[in-house]
């Protein structure tokens, strides 16, 4: 029996997931801010931050789409053991994880309906690094403007134009994360 898939989860789930969620919530509420997140040791190629987000938000009720290199045996079994989340294609997922290029095209993910705009996917985008530079962000959660290193700008502008429908993004790198809800104007 291979036991490496059994490790790397939260050792104190209720407290570690509470801390991890606060980091995710602060990031989503204040687009552009970068937060530390810890507690997970997922198998490669998942970052610790992406692993912690998955452990915090996923369970048997959340179909997850593994995009690109994350769709490997190690990640599948780790996710299955620690969360029980069913795997799905992009069109039926609630969460997706992968590098920006592997997640494309964004049009394949659910953006919610006009009566239930919350029934939309959240994309966890693995990045090489996160920095408070690059694209300028405006919108709810931001006092005036914020800056964040984004993998694209046009895609987020298109996503913003669909409001209140749209996708929400969590960017992860190492042990850090930032987020971009559908409300943020990117320029």
């Amino acid at each position, binding site marked *: 029996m291979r036991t490496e898939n059994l490790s790397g989860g939260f050792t104190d789930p209720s407290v570690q*997931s*509470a801390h991890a969620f606060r980091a*995710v919530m602060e990031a989503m*509420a204040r687009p552009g801010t970068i937060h530390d997140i810890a507690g997970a040791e997922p198998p490669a190629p998942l970052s610790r931050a992406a692993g912690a987000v998955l452990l915090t938000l996923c369970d048997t009720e959340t179909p997850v789409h593994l995009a690109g290199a994350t769709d490997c045996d190690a990640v599948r079994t780790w996710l299955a053991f620690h969360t029980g989340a069913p795997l799905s294609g992009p069109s039926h997922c609630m969460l997706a994880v992968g590098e920006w290029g592997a997640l494309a095209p964004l049009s394949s993910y659910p953006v919610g309906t006009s009566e239930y705009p919350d029934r939309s996917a959240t994309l966890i985008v693995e990045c090489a690094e996160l920095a408070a530079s690059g694209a300028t962000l405006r919108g709810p959660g931001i006092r005036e403007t914020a800056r964040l290193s984004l993998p694209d700008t046009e895609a987020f502008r298109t996503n913003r134009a669909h409001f209140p429908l749209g996708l929400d993004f969590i960017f992860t790198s190492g042990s850090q994360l930032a987020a971009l809800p559908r409300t943020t104007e990117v320029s």
Partner: protein
Amino acid sequence: MSGYNFAYLDEQTKRMIRRAILKALAIPGYQVPFASREMPMPYGWGTGGVQVSAAVLTPEDRFKVIDQGADDTTNAVSIRRFFERTAGIATTTATRDATVIQTRHRIPEEPLREGQILVYQVPIPEPLRFLEPRESETRKMHSLAEYGLMHVKLYEDISRHGHIATTYAYPVKVEERYVMDPSPIPKFDNPKLSDCAAIQLFGAGREQRIYALPPYTTVASLDFDDHPFDPSRADHPCGLCGSVETYLDEVIMDDAGGRMFVCSDTDHCETRQNAGYRGKDAG
């Protein structure tokens, strides 16, 4: 703390609530349905607020609960004790020391800061519910941003009373999209909703809805050009601290018509009294 999972709720329930909170923050003012649980208190006592608080609390938080501005009323005391027992967290009555504040029907007088979270207890989350009882219809109205009915209601107020007679749960529009019920806070508090530095989360347990305002979100109280929004307050100074800027409760003192006006926010009033401010009724 023993015999409970941290913050009472099981982890799967917290994950479900946390996912709803994230979508609520991404769509400010939109009511996200969630699978509200039975809590060890009756509906109407803050079951929605308690579930949201349980989902956001960490062991390092300092928790404050207010009921109509007061820290020492039954609802506030029992919810504070609930989380002392089930989460083992520190509590406070000081607004500035708290990191998470659960509130029933008031926003603290002291401006909130970044890093704080304000959790509202909400009885009826749907602002259109008393105008249109069918959920299928109100959901359609929100999806089409069809809020004419609400303006008709406010207009009828004006034609009947000469002014907009709604004094609490005064409807607001969030980021020029969703009309939202701010919970039954006095309309005096409505301006504090907008451009607030703290995260504002709203939980309705019986009605199974969560909604949210991220920091620095534009929240406008509905009004008309010729009848602008007026956040009125009783035209008196506080009897204990003398403040002329706070929201006041009217307290009947005897059976001979005696009355006094005191700050509804007990922590704010005590802080001012400790700083030497005195009103005419202070002993």
